[in-house]
């Protein structure tokens, strides 16, 4: 490991000060499952870790009176998918966090970390996008909000300014009678990085789709919101034809590369398959 120093912040303000004083080579430390490896392998130059896990609001999980959900940026994944209300009301979030890494990683890894790390294949980000998640950010210039859909700017890059860090992710209440689902394809059964992942959120008036969001992972430089797929179903009933149209719109939006995990052709195919899957599963949930 490169020579890092460790500081423990007990409040957001203290973390802001520590990060400002630490300059470019200071980083927040939540679960450390990405950033400790990056420091060890010298993929990121880090001289100071500011541990944010002892700031109570950073490890909270709060169901709000209006049905919204706020998850502290450093709240470990096991507490998210282990929360019965999250499983019932935000199943796409539960599904995506349940399969990130193994159990030992899930004891530490966080939504804030998965988002800040900005991997194109990050499993939780498409789920957060379709749930209209908003990242609450603190920094030397004060607090601000960034929609998850606009947070990642490239592989491993995000829109955070120097000294800024995520404090929580907020999700508005899902509409009554809405449905949502998240799914990924990997060649193993578990413990793998997505070849493709996909998520959807669908709200209805009777059988007619009134609101739709789609997102994809591992098929572009960042996790991708897919408004063209939403446009294919909004105002329509979900039939085999409209579902196929959404899947085709998702295929058109995806710009994958070929790498060790899959080819362009395979990924394009999977985008269609997974988009259909998540629509059908979201519909089942909406009707349940």
């Amino acid at each position, binding site marked *: 490991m490169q020579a890092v*120093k460790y500081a423990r912040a007990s409040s957001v303000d203290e973390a802001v000060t520590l990060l400002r004083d630490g300059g470019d080579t200071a980083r927040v430390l939540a679960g450390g*499952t990405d950033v*400790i490896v990056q420091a*060890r392998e010298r993929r990121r130059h880090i001289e100071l870790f500011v541990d944010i*896990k002892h700031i109570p609001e950073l490890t909270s999980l709060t169901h709000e009176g209006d049905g919204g959900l706020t998850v502290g940026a450093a709240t470990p994944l096991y507490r998210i998918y282990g929360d019965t209300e999250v499983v019932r009301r935000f199943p796409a979030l539960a599904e995506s966090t349940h399969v990130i*890494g193994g159990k*030992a990683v899930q004891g530490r890894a966080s939504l804030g970390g998965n988002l800040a790390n900005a991997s194109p294949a990050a499993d939780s980000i498409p789920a957060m996008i379709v749930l209209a998640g908003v990242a609450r950010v603190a920094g030397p210039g004060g607090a601000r909000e960034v929609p998850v859909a606009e947070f990642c700017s490239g592989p491993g890059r995000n829109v955070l300014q120097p000294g800024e860090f995520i404090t929580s992710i907020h999700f508005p209440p899902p509409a009554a009678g809405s449905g949502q689902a998240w799914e990924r394809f990997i060649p193993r*059964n578990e413990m793998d990085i997505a070849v493709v992942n996909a998520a959807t959120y669908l709200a209805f008036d009777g059988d007619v789709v009134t609101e739709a969001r789609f997102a994809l992972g591992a098929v572009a430089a960042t996790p991708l919101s897919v408004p063209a797929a939403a446009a294919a179903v909004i105002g329509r009933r979900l039939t085999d034809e409209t579902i196929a149209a959404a899947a085709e719109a998702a295929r058109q939006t995806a710009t994958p590369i070929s790498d060790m995990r899959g080819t362009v052709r395979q990924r394009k195919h999977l985008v269609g398959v997974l988009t259909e899957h998540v629509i059908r599963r979201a519909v089942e949930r909406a009707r349940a």
Partner: protein
Amino acid sequence: MTTTDDAILIRTTINGDPVTFLSSQRDSLLEALRERLNMTGAKEGCNNGNCGACSVMLDGRLVNSCLVLAAEVEGAHVDTIEGMADGETLHPLQQAFLEEAALQCGICTPGFLMSSRALLAENPTPTEEEVRFWLAGNLCRCTGYDKIVRAVLKAAGEMNEAR
């Protein structure tokens, strides 16, 4: 808590005993356990969170000790494989691993035992599928996993009978 020097004094609890030790701020918990405290049960396999050979419990949660900084365990409770047996009496999981020959070279075994114990604490009657899913973060290149899964299911049965 900030220090300007690289050395850091850490006060923690390991396997129920208060422990104070001097570490480097760059040390992982795994390095501190093995090199500062001579507790070599947790093993270094991949050093990046894939293999689970370094699994320990941190405040009651299973973690990869290679992905924890030693400085993070200030004031925390750490449980390691060294605290698993009760004196000369093996934990039922350890006994079942021996009886089912659930190890060959043994490097992964402390991690599998810690992970399996965490599983049975949360789910005392796991199915075979649940055991396999839970243990997916622990890699074994010798056994092919079947013997390990059998041992965990056997230990679960014995522990439930003893309850």
